[in-house]
């Protein structure tokens, strides 16, 4: 007696695929592949934006771990001693103490004077925790112990044509220009622009840096810092790595607040991630609806054209379930081919986008396929594909034999 009818379903499906219309088959696969690309491409781009942004947070803003003052305190006292202690923590590659203050910078050539954030550090220490020194586009980075020199971001330097500036700038300041800095304590000092850097991230490119030695001459810090940046041996943005480094720092008796780059950047990240997640979900839903309609229409046309054939199979004695399953096997095969073709297309697009990267506010985007998202989209594709294949197959297979044979 026949059992589940799988062999006959598979037998019919294989032959229908092998001998079916090649053009329709290829077109269907192409359409499904495009749906796969549509479901993933925005995620690929947006994920790489996030990934790039996270890398920027580590490379320029916070390192892997950042030490900030205790609750209700403005400064970290005895910063140098803490730096020495942190340098002994296993896995730590570099430590830099920073003193950041608000200032007004005036370009003596253009007269422009925007408010800015000025950070003082030891340039040699800073080179071990951040990559500013590698992003100098004009002039040079600061040297240890030098005074009267300033390095600033390209967006703070600005353009001669201020309509091109996104933020208030110095109106096209160039290396060699003199700027006057007005400190909060009322002191003023003239600096020569030594270098201009560009990280391609607006958060970084509006800052200005001087040496700690210099700052001590106009605004003595008393050995204090506003933050201490710690960077591990690895360049990774893996949150687990940062957490492990944080635990190691705490085990060395750090009393100040120790935060990973994720914790420090949480507010910004969550905001950005929330918006991006919403866009991703919206794109996914739209793509799924379009995919299911495409698969449904194709399966419906295919099945309607085979109405008589289905009736013949039923008349021979093949069970409805076997006939429906035959179409499900076909749909499964189409979805599999579409998923593979989609992956190939997506990979090709990713390669192209890496060769010709898109420039965004956070910098150039070098996308990579997010395979967890890809896997989810494929599972969803199979889900909607099989449902879209099942419904018309069940409807036609359930028709009266003689009625279906009459067409």
């Amino acid at each position, binding site marked *: *007696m*026949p*059992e589940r*009818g799988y*062999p*006959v379903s598979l*037998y*019919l499906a294989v*032959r*229908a695929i092998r*001998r*079916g219309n090649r053009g329709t088959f290829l077109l269907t696969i192409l359409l499904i592949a495009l749906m796969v690309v549509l479901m993933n491409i925005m995620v690929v781009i947006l994920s790489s934006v996030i990934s790039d942004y996270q890398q920027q947070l580590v490379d320029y803003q916070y390192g892997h771990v950042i030490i900030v003052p205790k609750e209700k305190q403005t400064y970290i006292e005895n910063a140098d001693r803490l730096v020495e202690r942190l340098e002994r923590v296993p896995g730590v590659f570099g430590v830099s103490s920073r003193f950041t203050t608000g200032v007004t910078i005036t370009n003596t050539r253009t007269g422009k004077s925007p408010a800015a954030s000025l950070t003082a550090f030891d340039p040699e220490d800073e080179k071990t925790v951040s990559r500013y020194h590698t992003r100098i586009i004009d002039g040079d980075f600061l040297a240890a112990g030098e005074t009267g020199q300033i390095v600033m971001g390209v967006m703070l330097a600005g353009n001669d044509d201020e309509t091109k500036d996104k933020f208030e700038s110095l109106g096209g300041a160039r290396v060699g220009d003199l700027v006057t800095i007005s400190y909060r304590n009322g002191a003023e000092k003239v600096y020569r622009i030594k270098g201009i850097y560009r990280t391609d991230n607006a958060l970084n490119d509006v800052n200005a840096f001087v040496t700690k030695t210099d700052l001590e001459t106009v605004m003595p810090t008393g050995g204090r810092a506003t933050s201490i940046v710690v960077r591990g041996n690895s360049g990774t943005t893996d949150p687990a790595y940062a957490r492990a480094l944080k635990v190691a720092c705490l085990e060395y008796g750090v009393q100040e607040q120790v935060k990973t780059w994720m914790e420090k950047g949480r507010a910004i990240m969550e905001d950005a991630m929330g918006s991006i997640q919403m866009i991703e979900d919206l794109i996914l839903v739209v793509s799924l609806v379009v995919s299911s309609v495409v698969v449904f229409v194709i399966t419906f046309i295919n099945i309607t054209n085979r109405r*008589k*054939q289905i009736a*013949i*199979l*039923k*008349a*021979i*004695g*093949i*069970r*409805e379930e*076997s006939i429906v399953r035959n179409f499900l096997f076909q749909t499964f095969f189409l979805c599999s081919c579409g998923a593979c073709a989609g992956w190939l297309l997506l990979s090709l697009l990713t390669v192209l986008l890496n060769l010709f990267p898109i420039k965004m506010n956070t910098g150039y985007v070098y996308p990579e396929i997010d395979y967890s998202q890809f896997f989810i989209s494929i599972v969803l594709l199979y889900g909607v594909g099989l449902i879209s294949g099942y419904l018309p197959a069940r409807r036609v297979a359930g028709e*009266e*034999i*003689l009625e279906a*044979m009459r067409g």
Partner: protein
Amino acid sequence: MIEVKDLTRIYKIGNVEVPALRGVTLSVRKGEFVGIMGPSGSGKSTFLHQLALLDTPTTGQILIDGSDVSRLNDEDRTRFRLMHLGYVFQDYALVTDLTVLENVAIPAIAQEKPLYDCYAAAAGMLDKVGLLKRKDHLVYELSGGEQQRVSIARALVNRPAIVFADEPCANLDTENSRTVLELFQSVNRDLGQTIVMVSHEPWHMEYFDRIIFIRDGLLDTEGMAREGCGNTLGRKE
């Protein structure tokens, strides 16, 4: 043995009821080659559809070897067709995605026999109908007569107890029709299968063991008497 008791089939077209069968009672003995004849619209194809479980009668009973099959559910009817019945359609009704061999093998595959055995049985049947050499052709590459022989081979591959044929020669020329009828006659004789065939060609009568005439949805006893078929059971005298 097939026993039909007071079989009716009424079609509903909108609010109008059209009786196609109006109470047919007869029996067919095991191993008989029975012809069902009658004018167009007489109800002979409808009658065959009921016997072959392709349609459900409005009232009445169909007993096959003592079992009432007229009230089986869809699933059981399908299984019964697969295991016990063969059917030859007027328009061949072959599956276009399949080759000749595959078309013939498909009922055996549906019985989940080993594929090798299915192909062997199909090849044997194709040999019997003289089409073994064309086993790898797609069905549309065959002539009408050849397609009908493939359809017959498919109906016979599982060695069903009963084979039904609905005007299998309707689209064939005389020579091909004769080939098909001789084929039915030979399988009936050699394999002992019961064959019930609808036809409207008078010259086909010579091939049948017995002829049943149907007119206006009823057995045509006058027609049977005129053709020397004797009584309502239509035995040839």
